[in-house]
């Protein structure tokens, strides 16, 4: 913790203005990411978890400036990448790469596998021609693809192999940080394990840091060192892996955990259904007043409807945005 963070995101905001349905109506704005602060240390994995529509993918894109943030700072090795001109940004892009959710649409169907992996090297003009070829061979080997598959097109690969191709492409320029946007959620269960193990092995061998976006708490628990829970564009709880699964403090985190099937026969019938989260994620263009979770929260009181809770450190290294969260649980009186 003493060394400076590889990536530091401060009060990041991404607001999307919506088109006005009529000229006399005020413009509304979607607060996709609304004041997110987080950091990822070298060689560590930070997991971002939340339901669909909570802004976690927008956050992933904004960190790489693939979506232009509207406010805040993104410090990569101490440099604010939001202030850089596109030309100055390019060398830094080598060190931060992304793996996408859908290995079907994120590969060019007309490029051969070799070309897909080689393209970042060509774009960045790294190495000589023969070195680039060697690098491609090395990358194929690293992610577990066979050299004779280099001349195939993406459609000739299975889903898991395509994701390996996406990983090889992300690794081409020896990055320090890889943003993984739901890298296994479109894969088959048995293939998920293969890709998760590959990501863990690569992290150990290459000292990579991951910003790992997922809606699957089991995957998050398996791969992450630290976890941030997002709800409606904001981080509501942030701490390390052991702490969050042992002492989830925010009611939303507790609800997410209780919704995961437990793989215990009959567990469902015995479970108390009043613990169940009601309703769905509200419209981010019209977030609720006060705490944005209050309409679904079983502990909600008047204060939650009026006043937005700040993130505060409830226990050492455990940050929660809830008026009534204490280290012992939710204060009920």
């Amino acid at each position: 913790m003493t060394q400076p963070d590889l990536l530091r995101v401060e009060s990041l905001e991404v607001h999307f203005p919506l088109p006005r349905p009529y000229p006399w109506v005020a413009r509304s704005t979607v607060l996709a990411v609304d004041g997110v602060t987080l950091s990822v240390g070298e060689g560590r994995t930070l997991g971002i978890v939340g339901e669909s529509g909570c802004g976690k993918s927008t956050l992933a894109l904004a960190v790489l400036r693939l979506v232009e943030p509207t406010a805040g700072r993104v410090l990569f090795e101490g440099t604010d990448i939001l202030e850089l001109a596109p030309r100055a940004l390019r060398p830094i892009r080598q060190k931060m790469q992304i793996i996408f959710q859908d290995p079907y649409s994120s590969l060019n169907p007309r490029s051969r596998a070799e070309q897909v992996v080689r393209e970042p090297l060509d774009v960045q003009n790294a190495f000589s021609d023969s070195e680039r070829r060697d690098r491609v061979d090395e990358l194929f080997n690293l992610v577990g693809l066979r050299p004779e598959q280099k001349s195939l097109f993406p459609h000739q690969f299975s889903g898991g192999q395509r994701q390996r191709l996406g990983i090889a492409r992300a690794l081409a320029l020896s990055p320090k940080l890889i943003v993984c946007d739901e890298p296994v959620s479109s894969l088959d269960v048995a293939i998920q394990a293969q890709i998760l193990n590959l990501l863990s092995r690569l992290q150990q061998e290459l000292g990579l840091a991951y910003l790992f976006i997922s809606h699957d708490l089991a995957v998050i628990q398996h791969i992450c060192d630290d976890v941030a829970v997002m709800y409606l564009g904001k981080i509501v709880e942030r701490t390390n892996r052991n702490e969050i699964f042992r002492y989830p403090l925010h009611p939303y985190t507790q609800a997410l955990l209780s919704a995961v099937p437990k793989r215990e026969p009959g567990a469902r019938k015995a479970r108390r259904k009043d613990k169940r989260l009601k309703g769905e994620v509200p419209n981010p263009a019209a977030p609720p007043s006060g705490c944005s979770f209050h309409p679904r929260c079983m502990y909600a009181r008047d204060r939650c409807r009026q006043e937005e809770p700040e993130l505060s450190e409830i226990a050492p290294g455990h940050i929660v945005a809830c008026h009534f969260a204490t280290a012992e649980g939710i204060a009920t009186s």
Partner: protein
Amino acid sequence: MSEVPTTLTASDLCVDFDSRTGPVRILHHVGFAVARGQTLGLVGESGCGKSMTALALMRLIPPPGAITQGTAILEDDDLFAVSEDRMRDLRGSALAMIFQEPMTSLNPVFTIGTQIGETLREHRGLSRNEAREQAVELLRSVYVPDPQRRVNAYPHQLSGGMRQRVMIAIALACNPVLLIADEPTTALDATVQAQIFDLLQEVQEQRGTSIILVTHDFGAVAEMADRIIVMYAGHNVEEGSVEEIVDDPRHPYTQGLLRCVPTVQQGGGARAPLAEIPGTVPDPRRLGTGCSFAERCPRVLPKCASKPPAFVVGPGRTVACWLVDPEAQGVLSP
């Protein structure tokens, strides 16, 4: 088990697809029974034939596929032998299906009230107004908020969870005895999945509906199902009660599937690499004569070059693997 009457008995179900090189078998002699008011889970990777089994029961296998063998007795009808007219009567009234993607299975140009009403008018001969009143009641029973207003909504105006509730309302419109749910929550968030499962369970308790739940998620079947069938490459590889399969899997494929999926452990738990099942599901055109799992199996034997029969290892419990062959017990005991 025996005192609960059976809703559906399927046996020896085979589905073939015609191809240029001759018929390709997609389902190999699949058989199972669903008891009244109980849930049967069909589990496996994509391409293992679980959705095909569900579609076969509805007789909705797309051409060039066809059911070439087998029976499926639902109450007094053999679903594979009745006329197309009779099947049309049965679909929606005796058995109904919920699909994975509620957006693509609802018609975008009709209101949900019209689509729920369609089933009622078709099967129960209700008038337009009666069907509409019923639709409101059905929406209320699946906990769609503000059903009076929502009955006029179009599918795109609803969230994914709400659309799946509408699908369930359509499926329940004529009170079917068997509900087939094909990955009903795969496209939904975990919190919404929990709500949908609560709803299905409530429906089952109130109406005694039998449910066939098709899913790749072992966590979901463990919580929902009474019995489980594990499928691989069109074969039923292991069958048993939910406790037997989850606590004591005997087939190497079932063991692999259970081990390779991370589960949430309270307090974090140890962090070991996940067990992997190497390779992928085989192409059905290239299935040999041996055990279809042999090339991915960590405990493959010379014997696996011939196809293992379904060994009965307990009441209602079968395992299609040479490892449980009673004649070889002691030598190969798992």
